[in-house]
């Protein structure tokens, strides 16, 4: 039987939200499915409850709050900065746990001081957990895509390869496969001799003419999503990517970076040592990283309880910097998870660039943790 009553500690949680200067918002339970599938990807489709309106519009039961809260913000056009809090039911098809459960969280929109906003949100999450799980110790794991991006850029790979690696960030197997491939250049297969010759000669115009003629002939041109110029551009890029490789030293550097896993207290030193030993110009990324650690300390976040894991990331294109998860110390269940999603509001249609960071609390797991203590 699903637990559909509000968790008993909801009142305490709302008190923390209010004390930390957030505005409580609610959103409809029935949501247009399009923004979720568009932003979070098709993988979400099998995990949400989809239905259709009479007019064929695709609808779903709210699977999370971040997208609805952001859409509401854009619609209301009330300006930034804004700190929103929410508490309500979400609906997901899960193998474990109920399909209908409570989530609460904070979305912190529009603060251009990235380091202090990151620190504030982690402190928010810890304050919430501290209130509803009093006396418990927590462990925070954090990752930072910006540092990984800087490392990959400093290795001197072509931009296309940098993007590939960043896309695979957080997906260990995929990343390992890519790193293995980078040990040696690859042959570029599958081209006809005609295309190969034109590509060798660097004759873009002739290549484009060839593709246009072929598209015309097959009737594909009228509806072509990718133009002949698009295809020629990527053919050239692909050739560049196929030829790219890393020497053994740089491969080791990349692997070593991904294996870094230290307490945040020591992370700035470890990162600086790493950059020096590998002779990588990471100054900008290190400055940003150190600023965040300093901001964490200022915000009163317990650095000793926070671990920085260099390989920790999420495979979605709107996550841009900090990601974090919080568990009770000595337990695996993630009680809170969040991160920075600076690209999301623009993807959802905001006119201006709005930096954003937030987290969600898994109230059903917290309820269990309370019961077990």
């Amino acid at each position, binding site marked *: 039987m699903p637990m559909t009553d509000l968790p008993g500690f909801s009142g305490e949680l709302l008190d923390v939200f209010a004390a930390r200067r957030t505005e409580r918002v609610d959103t409809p339970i029935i949501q247009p499915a399009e923004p979720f599938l568009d932003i979070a990807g*098709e*993988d979400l489709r099998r995990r949400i409850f989809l239905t259709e309106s009479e007019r064929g519009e695709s609808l779903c039961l709210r699977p999370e709050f971040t997208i609805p809260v952001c859409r509401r913000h854009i619609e209301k056009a009330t300006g930034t900065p804004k700190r929103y809090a929410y508490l309500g039911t979400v609906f997901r098809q899960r193998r474990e746990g109920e399909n209908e459960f409570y989530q609460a969280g904070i979305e912190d929109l529009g603060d251009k001081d990235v380091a202090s906003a990151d620190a504030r949100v982690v402190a928010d999450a810890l304050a919430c957990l501290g209130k509803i799980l009093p006396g418990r110790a927590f462990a925070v794991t954090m990752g930072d895509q910006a540092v990984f991006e800087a490392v990959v850029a400093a290795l001197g790979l072509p931009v296309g390869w940098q993007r590939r690696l960043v896309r695979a960030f957080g997906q260990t197997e995929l990343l390992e496969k890519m790193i293995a491939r980078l040990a040696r250049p690859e042959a570029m297969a599958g081209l006809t001799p005609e295309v190969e010759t034109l590509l060798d000669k660097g004759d873009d115009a002739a290549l484009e003419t060839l593709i246009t003629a072929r598209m015309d002939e*097959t009737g*594909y041109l009228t*509806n072509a999503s990718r133009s002949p110029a*698009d295809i020629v551009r990527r053919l050239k890029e692909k050739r560049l990517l196929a030829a790219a490789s890393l020497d053994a030293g740089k491969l080791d550097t990349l692997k070593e970076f991904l294996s870094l896993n230290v307490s945040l207290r020591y992370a700035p030193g470890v990162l600086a040592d790493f950059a020096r030993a590998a002779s990588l110009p990471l100054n900008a990324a290190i400055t940003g990283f150190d600023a965040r650690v300093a901001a964490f300390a200022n915000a009163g976040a317990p650095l000793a309880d926070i671990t920085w894991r260099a390989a920790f990331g999420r495979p979605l294109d709107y996550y841009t910097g900090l990601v974090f998860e919080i568990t009770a110390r000595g337990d695996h269940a993630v009680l809170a998870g969040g991160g920075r999603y600076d690209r999301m509001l623009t993807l959802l249609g905001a006119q201006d660039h709005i930096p954003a960071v937030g987290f969600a609390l898994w109230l059903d797991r917290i309820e269990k943790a309370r019961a077990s203590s």
Partner: protein
Amino acid sequence: MITIALPSKGRMKEDASAIFERAGMKIVAVGNDRSYRGRVEGWDDVEIAFLSASEISREVGAGTVDFGVTGEDLVREGLADADARVEFAARLGFGHADVIVAVPDIWFDVETMADLGDVAAEFRARHGRRLAIATKYWRLTQQFFSGSHGIQLYRIVESLGATEGAPAAGQADIIVDITSTGSTLRANHLKILSDGVILRSQACFVRARKPEHEGNPTVERIVAAVRAAL
């Protein structure tokens, strides 16, 4: 009583009947030729239900029939956690077809799933929307793209017929579809990616994983007879 669901028409019906006949399980229709019930000569505790191939995968998945003959593609597409719910007791050697990823053959720069990953990643920035895939195999597509190849950024456009025409018609950019000879794909100027075979499917003899099958001699005899006929 053990129920076996068989395809109700076409090549699949004939090929399945031939295998059962070789297995010493001659199938006879109850009533007239077009009846949807049948029995097996000499096997009084077995009955036959003639259904469409997609119904068969659903009914075996739900356990309302004990066995079925249907395409592996339909089982894996139709059922979450297929291997936990059904057993592929035998592959029958007919009804071969591959579920594949195909792109316009004019995409000279796209030969592999990794290429497609690159194109999908920048699709939105270049074209203002996600890469669109026409298919009726949304589960297999997701597992292959998101699970096996780490590609998250695409949209599925459900296509219930003539999927291979979707790219030329502008309904989608690429397709995931079934093909046996590839001639329809070629006629529509599409090519299969070199690592774009999602599933090599064929007709299978599938058993619903039901606890009451444990130690049931008829169930064991049926499986042994079908396997021996291959």
